[in-house]
């Protein structure tokens, strides 16, 4: 069961008395070794990030001469400028900037609409549940897990019919449709723990469907809204498959443009520019993770421990 509490599980152990099993291991395994192992794993996880950062700040010649692991001897931010505004992405030398903006224009409305729909759905499914509502929820949820290869062919046609083919609006629509399941999951599980008596009491006082939602549930929905928004933001920002399938040259999201930059380089491979571009694509989600890491973890956990 993963109502909001599931997420609380990752609390630091500090303050709680150590269960005996843990302190037993302590005496057997010297703490130093333990910390060394943990530090080695830190290096393992940080290494690719280190590689990306240092190599985005050095001239190409330092990378090709076998210096990938060393700090730049000649620091430069030129690769960043190039990746942002002058690198050849696909046909034109526009840099990644227009695609970064595409991603922003795609992710903001998609996240906003999907979150609102999810909140309303969760409200209905828990406080106004009816016969078959669990089945409906199950069917909504299954939609998040299908391999999206199943919908690529009909979706391409459908977007064409709707006049949304190759546009950012089309991508917003696609992400909205396949995000509803998760946003509904979050709000449903959260509202399930919300006292139904309050809702019933308000009903007796004459409050209507939307009044109850706005006045009673919405004010306490902050935490789950944050989780849902983070989850959707990361997923939609990081999406590649839909972006690659349903966008034109001028509506490509960041991930697709970045991949084009790296794969299609004719002539010299500018590794430093690739790394700078990769960091740009990673920055928004990394920032979210660093600022709101706790909620990010909750989102991941709730997404995996359903019910």
């Amino acid at each position, binding site marked *: 069961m993963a109502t909001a509490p599931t997420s609380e599980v*990752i609390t630091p152990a500090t303050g709680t008395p150590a269960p005996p099993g843990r302190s037993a291991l*302590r005496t057997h395994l010297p703490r130093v070794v333990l910390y060394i192992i943990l530090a080695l794993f830190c290096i393992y996880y940080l290494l690719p990030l280190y590689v990306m950062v240092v190599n985005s700040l050095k001239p190409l010649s330092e990378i090709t001469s076998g210096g990938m692991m060393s700090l730049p001897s000649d620091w430069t931010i030129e690769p960043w400028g190039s990746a942002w505004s002058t690198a050849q992405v696909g046909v034109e030398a526009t840099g990644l900037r227009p695609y970064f903006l595409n991603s922003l224009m795609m992710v903001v409305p998609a996240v906003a609409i999907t979150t609102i729909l999810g909140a309303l759905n969760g409200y*209905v499914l828990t406080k106004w549940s009816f016969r078959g509502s669990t089945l409906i929820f199950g069917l909504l949820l299954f939609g998040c897990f299908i391999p999206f*290869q199943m919908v690529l*062919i009909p979706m391409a046609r459908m977007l064409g019919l709707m006049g949304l083919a190759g546009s950012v609006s089309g991508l917003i629509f696609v992400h909205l*449709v396949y995000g509803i399941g998760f946003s509904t999951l979050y709000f449903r599980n959260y509202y399930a723990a919300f006292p139904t008596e309050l809702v019933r009491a308000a009903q007796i006082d004459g409050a209507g469907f939307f009044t109850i939602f706005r006045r009673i549930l919405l004010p306490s929905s902050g935490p789950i809204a944050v989780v849902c928004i983070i989850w959707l933001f990361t997923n939609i920002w990081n999406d590649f498959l839909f972006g690659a*399938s349903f966008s034109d040259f001028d509506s490509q999201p960041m991930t697709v443009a970045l991949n084009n930059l790296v794969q299609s380089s004719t002539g010299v491979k500018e590794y430093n520019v690739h*790394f700078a571009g*990769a960091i740009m694509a990673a920055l928004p989600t990394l920032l979210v993770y660093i600022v709101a890491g706790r909620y990010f973890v909750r989102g991941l956990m709730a997404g995996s421990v359903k019910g």
Partner: protein
Amino acid sequence: MSHADTPRRSRSVDWLRDALPKLVLSPSIVLVAIFVYGFIAFTVYLSFTDSRILPSFGWVGWQNYTNLFRIRAWDTAVTNLAIFGVLYISICCLLGLLLAILLDQKIRAEGFIRTVYLYPMALSFIVTGIAWKWFLDPGIGLEAVVQGWGWESFRFDWIKDSDMAIYTIVIAAVWQTSGFVMAMFLAGLRGIDGEMLKAAQIDGASTFALYRRIVIPQLRPAFMSAFVVLAHMAIKSYDLVIALTNGGPGTATEVPATFMYSYTFTRNQMGIGASSAVIMLMTIAAIIVPYLWSELREKK
């Protein structure tokens, strides 16, 4: 509450009030009915037709499926998925469990370390793919660096080696997801009842026995969730392969997701592409449906 109104007005208000929740839910239901289930039906139908560059409706029965299983690239894709899936899931689980147990020893900087282990999960697979692509590239990456340090005979060119390239995808994917599995197990560990551990310890259980007999069995729900999430990610994995190896060298790292895409959109064999997507759906459904079923039934 409209007692003062005429009965007729009141009835329509009542009707609206009763129907409102369902009305609010209905757009989502309609969207999912069309764009998930309708589309599934459409793709299943296409998989029995002679569609090539565009959907066409000439019925060919099971022919696409029999053809599919004769295509060598599909064979490679399925084998690769099996290798990748087994290694990815088991290494992530083992590493995740190990890290969770290590981190559960009242570590000083736990918050920081957890952040470091988990951040790759926030990255796009494209970013992960690019980072590892160049890091593993023998010309500039690890191999060149180690050789530069003086170990001239050092070789690590898996990413260019048809037999080994699939393992580089495992390396990058494990890097991306293992921290998340760690978080799931850590959550499970924190939920274990300390009293039971205390009792077992008083009975003289060794630390190893304690973990093997008491702690790990209690992590079963976490294992289940991790398995479902990882299996589902493995089957759907597309972006990472595209960014890291682009299916190459040759077709050495083709997986079902890339196979489906290239057969449908670049080789104009839509019928075969659709049938490969159906196989993917069946595989995922075999894992997800029982899981959702058990989770939702318990809840009720």
